[in-house]
């Protein structure tokens, strides 16, 4: 009866529509609406150049949000993003000052510093059982302290290497920026890991109920630790790309990426409680946030207004589809 009719209607829809998560669909619908609103304001919003430019800007956030998503899928959160980004950028630029070997090792060294921050986070969460929100805030403060001591409180003078600039601003395939290619590669790897490997299944399992995952023989603590290390590494890589884009590192370059990365993941339908969400949603969330930022800056909205609209939009969208079930 009602179930069969529902099944009948759904059965006639194309397969990808039937399987689509309502949250992901909403996020994509919002992207389309934003683009249409933007095109009312200015014709160039629908031009390929503008859209590619937006994808390029989105790729930095995309890389960072990928790590954030892995951690959120576990039901944890990584608030050390701001200074993981800055540490990655600063350390990569700093390594570049040490001769030829330094230039070659700049990018791996920057990422490694991020991984180190992530390992401290992961150790605290997985083995010491400290709430992730707290330990990541603490490592963020420590990373900030280390960088302040290292730079003397000023923006460092070292500049990015040619390789970093090429990764962020060049284009190997004509017309497609390298940043977008990197994001696509990282995204593809993430989709593979999440859907085709036991690690990915374990991540979803831990996010749903860590106790059950542990009882079914998963070394949950190792998985949590690895996830945090990956998140730290990806944040730092995002920082390396940003440093390449601006050709140097800056003190508070990571501050602008904490809220957007969490928002992108959550707006993409990933449950903040963990265990549920798809990478496609995160892609939608990242593009949505980047477009929102871009439209606000094209409209020459001052920083204050941007922050307000931003916060309001995130709360409003979460109220639309990110609510927890009522306690009954």
């Amino acid at each position, binding site marked *: 009866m009602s179930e069969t009719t529902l099944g009948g209607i759904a059965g006639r829809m194309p397969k990808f529509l039937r399987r689509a998560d309502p949250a992901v669909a909403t996020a994509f619908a919002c992207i389309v609406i934003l683009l249409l609103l933007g095109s009312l304001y200015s014709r160039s919003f629908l031009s390929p150049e503008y859209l590619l430019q937006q994808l390029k800007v989105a790729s930095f956030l995309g890389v960072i949000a990928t790590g954030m998503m892995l951690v959120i899928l576990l039901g944890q959160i990584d608030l050390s993003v701001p200074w993981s980004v800055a540490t990655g950028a600063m350390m990569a630029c700093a390594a570049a000052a040490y001769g030829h070997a330094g230039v070659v090792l700049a990018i791996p060294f920057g990422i490694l510093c991020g991984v180190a921050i992530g390992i401290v986070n992961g150790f605290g969460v997985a083995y010491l059982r*400290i709430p992730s929100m707290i330990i990541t805030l603490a490592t963020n403060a420590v990373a900030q302290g280390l960088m302040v001591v290292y730079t003397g409180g000023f923006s460092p003078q070292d500049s990015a290497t040619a390789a970093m600039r090429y990764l962020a601003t060049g284009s190997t395939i004509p017309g497609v920026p390298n940043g977008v290619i990197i994001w696509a590669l990282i995204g593809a790897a993430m989709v593979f890991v999440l859907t085709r490997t036991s690690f990915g299944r374990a991540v979803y399992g831990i996010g749903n109920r860590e106790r059950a995952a542990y009882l079914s023989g998963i070394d949950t603590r190792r998985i949590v630790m690895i996830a945090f290390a990956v998140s730290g590494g990806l944040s730092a890589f995002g920082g390396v790309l940003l440093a390449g884009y601006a050709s140097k590192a800056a003190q508070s370059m990571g501050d602008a990426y904490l809220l957007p990365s969490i928002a992108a993941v959550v707006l993409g339908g990933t449950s903040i409680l963990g265990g549920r969400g798809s990478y496609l949603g995160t892609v939608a969330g990242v593009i949505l946030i980047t477009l929102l930022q871009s439209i606000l800056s094209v409209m020459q909205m001052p920083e204050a207004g941007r922050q307000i609209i931003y916060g309001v939009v995130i709360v409003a969208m979460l109220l639309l589809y990110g609510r927890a079930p009522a306690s009954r």
Partner: protein
Amino acid sequence: MKDWRYLMAEQRGTLLALGIFIVMFIIYTTNHPAGFTANVVQTAANKGVLLAFVAMAQTLVVITAGIDLSVGMILLLTNCLASWLVVGTPFETTLGVIAVLLAGLVCGAINGAIVIYGRLQPIVATIATGAVYYGIGLLLRPFPGGSVNEDLADALTGKLFDVIPTSLVALLVVVLVVWVPFSRSVFGRAAYAAGSSETAAYMSGVPIRRGKFFAYMLAGLLASIGGLFLTFFTYTGEAAYASGNAYTLFSIAAVVLGGVSLFGGKGSAIGAIFGALAFRTIGDLLFVFDFDPLWQPLFQGVILLIAVSLGAFALFRVRNRLEWFL
């Protein structure tokens, strides 16, 4: 005898924080070039009280097993607002103070409404509302500036009878007027119950929603009192993103040092106050030992890291490995 033991067990965190604070303060004053004088105490009190207000605000929310990452931004917003409103004749100043406190109350109520009635996760919700509050603060004060009624400011940051710092007295008054009635009311108990086990509290008919809502609202109020005092100390309003974030971070550190459980249902604002005072004193230890101020952020970060890692000792008491996973 038995009552006494229960009371000790209940207040263990608070007493530990008090102990840490006293030890740190003795180290601080004995190494301070001026020694233990009324002026040294006044300066230390003025710096500590600011954080103490924010830590109290954080405690109220943490007790309900939530977290408020917007307290620092409410502090900034009310600081900017106070630099416009708390000026002029005594009557205008009074109205200004009331308006600033109301603004804090409204910010807290918005947080509470979104978290409780909107059923969003406190972390994400308060980061987002924090961005809004920061934006409004920046709208009010795009550049640092403004002024404040200096008579009131001097009165509240000076010394009473040339000995007792007035800010400490103000802190005591706020504790007696806000914290004590709240923690003894039905709503306060509901906040504790919701933090300790929301399902059990719901089943026993405790008004958890109203209790949590009150906790968030009063947290906004306490943060706005902090914002008022910040204006009294600096005479200006400034919307600096980094300083708002620092206050949020330090409030969490103070709460942890003060023996308030981040899982909710345990601890008191009194403990958080001593935690805040202890954290400030530890941060200032660097100055009396003549270190480069550049090391202060790292030093504070390491203290925070150690403080939060101390909670890991509870793992030794765990008999069943499954209790690792809450």
